[in-house]
């Protein structure tokens, strides 16, 4: 598939064919903490003893609960799998995971044990913050929040929402799938391009006017189309199906132990 891109605005060249690219997180929406709460399952709680499977299946809690209950796992398997990444502070996810770029800001000194050669004074190089984004903590300086050459940033500056009363901004993020971004940016095709994705979290807590405002800004300024999802759908999709069911077989080299425990174990323990 040849990928094509252009800096044209929506509406200005509707006759041209365009690229619709789906990504999990087109842009970072910064929301106040109260609204930004993602009711996702921490791996700590996953690692705690599982609820009785027979019991949970016997009740119809799946339908009524606002967020999905924990995905049942085989006894024994979950402990090894989920505790190790959590205790090391590793982010689980593929390059394009929406929450592999969590907007969790770690204070200096709270450093995962699994980063043995993280330079000690790295945090002072940037703004003193570390973003927990994978195997290593990435030091984040304020200068890296916007890259030169990124279309929207250069066109509209910090792109702060014009409505001051709204407590959110749209900002470019360095997270997400760099390879995908590079591919899109490097394309010389003159067609219009549009990103389609979620906000990276469920949107039950956003009122309709906020959704409309966010949707409008992303569509007009950034050529991004938003699929608003309920908290339950987002949590169930991402934290449960993607991470606990799909995750293992699609990551054969990093979770081979888990696969053996979960799948092969399943077959051979009869």
């Amino acid at each position, binding site marked *: *598939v040849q990928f094509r891109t252009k800096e044209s605005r929506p509406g200005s060249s*509707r006759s041209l*064919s*365009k*690229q*619709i*690219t*789906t990504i*999990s997180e087109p842009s970072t929406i910064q929301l106040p903490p109260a609204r930004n709460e993602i009711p996702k399952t921490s791996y700590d709680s996953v690692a705690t003893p599982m609820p009785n*499977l027979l019991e949970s*299946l016997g009740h119809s809690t799946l339908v009524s609960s606002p967020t*999905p209950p924990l995905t*049942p796992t085989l006894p024994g398997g979950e402990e090894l799998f989920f505790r190790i*990444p959590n205790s090391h502070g*590793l*982010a689980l*996810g593929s*390059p*394009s995971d*929406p929450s*592999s770029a969590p907007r969790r800001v770690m204070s200096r000194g709270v450093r995962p044990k699994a980063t043995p*050669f993280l*330079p000690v004074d*790295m945090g002072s*190089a940037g703004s003193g913050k570390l973003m927990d984004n*994978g*195997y290593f903590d990435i*030091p984040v300086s304020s200068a890296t929040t916007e890259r030169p050459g990124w279309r929207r940033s250069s066109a509209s500056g910090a792109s702060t929402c014009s409505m001051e009363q709204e407590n959110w901004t749209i900002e470019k993020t360095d997270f997400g*799938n760099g*390879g995908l971004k*590079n*591919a899109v940016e490097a394309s010389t095709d003159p067609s219009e391009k549009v990103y*389609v*994705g*979620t906000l990276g979290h469920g949107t039950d807590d956003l009122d309709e006017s906020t959704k409309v405002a966010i949707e409008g800004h992303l569509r007009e300024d950034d050529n991004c*189309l938003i*699929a*608003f*999802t*309920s908290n339950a*759908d987002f*949590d*169930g*999709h*991402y934290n449960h*199906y993607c991470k*606990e*069911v*799909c995750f293992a*077989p*699609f*990551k*054969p*080299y*990093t*979770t081979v132990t888990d696969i053996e425990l979960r*799948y092969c174990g*399943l077959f051979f*323990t*009869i």
Partner: protein
Amino acid sequence: LTSTSSGASLIFDNRAFLDHSWKYFEALNKSIADVIIKDYKKGDTVWVNDYHLLLVPKMVRDALGPDARIGFFLHVGFPSSEIFRCLAHREKLLYGILGATMVGFQTEEYVRHFLQTCSRLLNVEVQNGGVLLDSRLVNVVNLPIGIEPIQLDEKRKEREVAEWTEQLQLRYAGKKLLVARDKVG
């Protein structure tokens, strides 16, 4: 008695995988697909990325018909059929991907895994470089995601990178070191 209880737990575990979070996966894929379908104009190309959206190509295809150009790229690995067959919704996932016009993977090995999985689990005709469905051919290609050398070179010159380099050189002085970056998990 032991064998009976293991058997029972096996069945229930399978049911859990079958029914538990699948509907959320489907629902989110649907909400993405709906946005694409609504915005689509004839001649557009839709490019679907990664395993979160495995069902989107088919959802879009069903709505837009056989002429729509839909690409799908899987950024993570594709397992062998022996592992993939463990997924309760394996057929829906595979048909979801096969809604695309072209499917891309990171390595030749993943291409082979995918083709073999389609052949074994769906019983469809697979040829070198594609899957033959009733009405159309789905191209399956090895197209590893590249790096952007100019941008990478600029990054290498940043002060933070220099500090990392220095730390690594200090720590592994006298050794030859190959440094790579990867996501774990």
